[in-house]
């Protein structure tokens, strides 16, 4: 009898709990249908940038205007009316808050700096969550699918941006911004080439060189061209950002594949580099003398080791692999105006100069003057090439084939 009663109870409670929680979750999760989340979001929410949550249908024209932001006053402005942008600024202040998923994993200190400065200038609280790029992408995807938007902004590289635009369809058009016209033509052309300009704004260029341990590599023996790293003397002396996963190593792989050829990469693999995905730690390991060279080395990491007497950076010819670092607005957001205002702020002199001071190439050319003298030459190196987002899957497979024993 006990068993009968208790089982009945179990069924009763189980039915209640699982139906309301687990089953609802499953049903919600599988109820995605064939519509993209962006389309669904657009259909469900009011499409104005001054109401939350806003969507892909948020009208960029309403706010595409000359800037009323402090920086824009001293900089060229985009087309549109000052009044409309003033309205964006006013609404942004009313929204009062912003959630930013930093898919650069905190590796670009300027994001934190910009958040602090933005908060102090506009009084808008910015909550930054540093995470890996794929985590940012997945969180945004889940939030958009579930209709529970948390992130107002997500920082991403060009490959991730391409995926979010074309595959996940989880970001919305950003529209015109006052400071957008300040972005260099080179960067705009690059972004345009991948069809990213509408949904992403790129605030910086990560440039890659080679980190050298000066104890293990005598003066004058550093690699002067990329071909030099194939010298047998470097065999077993190289730590390499793993090209088999999205990241700097893959950017280098993609750029080298086009500029230097597949044989170069196969010969590089024959050097038996140690592949790692912890790039910050790799720089430290070169500084400590575990390895002679780190390939590729993101210049943005240099401030971390520049005071260490055992390292220096060289930029082999013919040029530097690079990747565009950008930011996007998810399809549904709670603070659309604050998001746009923040993106515009990233293109301001203050933020762009901070990027340059931290060894990241600014997208506003004039800000390069703020870079330390020793960094200016490195950051001004000719660009070798970058990843090709639409062909990423195919190239990752090739990288796996070449660099897996």
């Amino acid at each position, binding site marked *: 009898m006990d068993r009968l009663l*208790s089982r009945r*109870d179990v069924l009763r*409670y189980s039915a209640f709990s699982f139906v309301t*929680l*687990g089953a609802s*979750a499953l049903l919600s999760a599988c109820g995605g249908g*064939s519509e993209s989340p962006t389309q669904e979001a657009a259909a469900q929410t009011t499409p104005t940038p001054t109401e939350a949550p806003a969507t892909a249908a948020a009208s960029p024209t309403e706010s595409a205007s000359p800037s009323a932001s402090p920086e824009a006053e001293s900089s060229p402005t985009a087309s549109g009316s000052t009044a409309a942008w003033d309205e964006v600024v006013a609404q942004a202040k009313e929204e009062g808050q912003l959630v930013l998923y930093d898919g650069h994993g905190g590796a670009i200190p300027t994001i934190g700096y910009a958040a602090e400065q933005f908060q102090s200038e506009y009084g808008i609280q910015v909550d930054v969550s540093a995470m890996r790029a794929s985590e940012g992408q*997945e969180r945004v995807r889940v939030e958009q699918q579930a209709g529970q938007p948390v992130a107002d902004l997500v920082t991403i590289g060009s490959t991730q941006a391409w995926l979010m635009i074309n595959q996940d369809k989880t970001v919305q058009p950003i529209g015109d911004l006052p400071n957008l016209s300040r972005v260099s033509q080179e960067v705009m052309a690059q972004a345009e080439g991948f069809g990213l300009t509408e949904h992403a704004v790129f605030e910086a260029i990560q440039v890659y060189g080679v980190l050298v341990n000066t104890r293990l590599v005598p003066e004058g023996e550093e690699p002067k061209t990329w071909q030099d790293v194939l010298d047998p003397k470097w065999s077993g002396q190289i730590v390499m950002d793993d090209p088999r996963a999205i990241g700097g190593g893959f950017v280098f792989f993609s750029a080298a594949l086009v500029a230097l050829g597949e044989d170069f990469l196969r010969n590089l693999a024959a050097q038996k580099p140690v592949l790692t995905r912890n790039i910050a730690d790799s720089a430290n*390991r070169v500084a400590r003398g575990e390895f002679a060279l780190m390939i590729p080395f993101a210049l943005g990491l240099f401030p971390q080791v520049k005071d260490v007497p055992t390292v220096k950076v060289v930029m082999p010819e013919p040029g530097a692999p690079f990747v565009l670092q950008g930011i996007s607005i998810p399809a549904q957001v709670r603070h659309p105006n604050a998001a746009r205002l923040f993106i515009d702020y990233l293109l301001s002199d203050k933020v762009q100069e901070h990027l340059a001071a931290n060894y990241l190439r600014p997208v506003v050319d004039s800000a390069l003057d703020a870079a330390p003298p020793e960094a200016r030459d490195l950051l001004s190196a000719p660009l070798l090439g970058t990843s090709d987002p639409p062909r990423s899957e195919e190239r990752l497979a090739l990288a796996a084939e070449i660099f897996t024993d």
Partner: protein
Amino acid sequence: MAIADIMRQSRRRTSTVLTGPVLLLVIVAVLTVSPVLLLAYGGLRDAPIGAPGNLTLDNISRLVLSSAWLVILETAVISASAVIGGFLVGGVALAWLVGRTNLPGASFFEAVLTLPLYIPPIMMAVAWAMLGAPRVGLLNVISRETLGFEVLDVYSHTGVIWYLLVFSVAFQLSFAASAFRTFDASLEEAGRVSGARPFRVLVRIVVPLLFPILSGVFLYSLVRSFEAFEGPLLLGAQAGVDMISVEIYDLVQNRLPPDYPMASIMGVFSVLIVLPLTWYQWHVLGRRSFTVLGARGYKSGSYDLGVWKIPAFLLCVLATVLVVFLPISQLVLGSFTRFFGVFEAGFTLDHYSSVLHNGQLLRALRNSAVLGTIGATLALLLSGLVAYVIARGRTVPRWVRITLNFLSWLPLTVPGIVLALGFLWLYAFAPIPLYATRVGLVIAYVVLVLPLAARAMVGSLSQISADIEEAGRVAGSGWLRTVVTILIPLIWPSAMVAWILAFVGIFRDLSTSVLLVPPGQPVFSTALLELWGVGKIEEVCVLSVLAMLPMVVARYLVGRLQGYEMRMRSTSR
């Protein structure tokens, strides 16, 4: 008619009595099974959860036909190697020495050697990465100078095994030492009186009698090693050491597009592999107290090591240096170096200043303290109820108790990162607003530490005779009064230990926190990871040292409470 009424009333009473346990069973089931179910569902789709897609079995066939089995096999071999070593060193040799003999400083050694359990794994991985790095690792530099060769390449299979071994020694020692300590000395005496030498007594009497608990601890340790994440990621990934948790991470992190369905199905398989081990371990551990801690009383005692006292002492010193002193010294030293590992760059206090003036880091520490306190308290309450039903619920059907016990173990079988993914999806698509909230994070924490807290509480309650409670009721006390006035005074030391262990478990967790922390509310482990990610290892060391102090206090308190409880029970007997 009257008999029928009595029977009806009896049924009603039984139904009321059962409502609580059954409700508890359902709560525990929802908490522990829902994320796993969602994970299984994700593994049976051809697209990530939430994205348009169809149900399919393709992921299972992909898994079966892929090289994933080799990864699982490699994980098993690595884990088993580490745990067998940990068992022989920590589970038997050291546990017997500190728990059963007159070894000088036994309590000190026990406390220090189990300290790694209180330190976030990522910190230990960082420390060993420094110590055992080829060419420049401190350990290798010293051994090269003195022995002429390098003793450890931490970026290798050996390195990963060594890293897991350190935790395994600490873990097995922490459980086994108390088992040796509470072992009835009269059984040993009987052996000795019969002419057996000490080693023979240990091998033929003590170990066999403690086999259930030792094997349970062994399996528990094996499961933990099987699911280890931070060390294998930091030390093993670059050397091609494939561990299942890292493989799952790789599927999510490094594939284009992220292979969530495959990661899900691999997570489910991981659960299925570990489940039988957990079942057995639950089964044997569930009986632990009934073999040597009978109500008739027992005799505790110390075995005199005689001339072996000094060698045994030196052995413990060596173990302490290798397992604890070296990595912790490396972290402390690193916190003062201007640049980690480059001593010629000089020493500084700047990193301490930087950390102590970093509002974000201090907020992370505060968040972890608050969430840890709330999570541990809720886990204690839940595990207390679970333990009460399991150990005391005589009127509760056996299958309810077994299921409850099993479910309270279930989270142990799920790798942290997989559990976090299940919770992420659950919260996102659940009708209750838990996504990206601290409440959601706390719930995940409660589930995460439930096995540990429940085990501690079940163990404690099982050792107290039900007669004591019944005597209280006979004397006229109600259930609540009996629990408050009799039971709680007897089990509070264990409850405190369970609380501290739960708090530490939450504080040091990374794999669950990393996906569930709300924006702008970092916790200690995610802040640590962020610092590590941007190469600020010196600040990682500072944060580690700062966090270590309360952890040492926690370890001290656990030791004191366990000692107090033993004395209390000895006196009561």
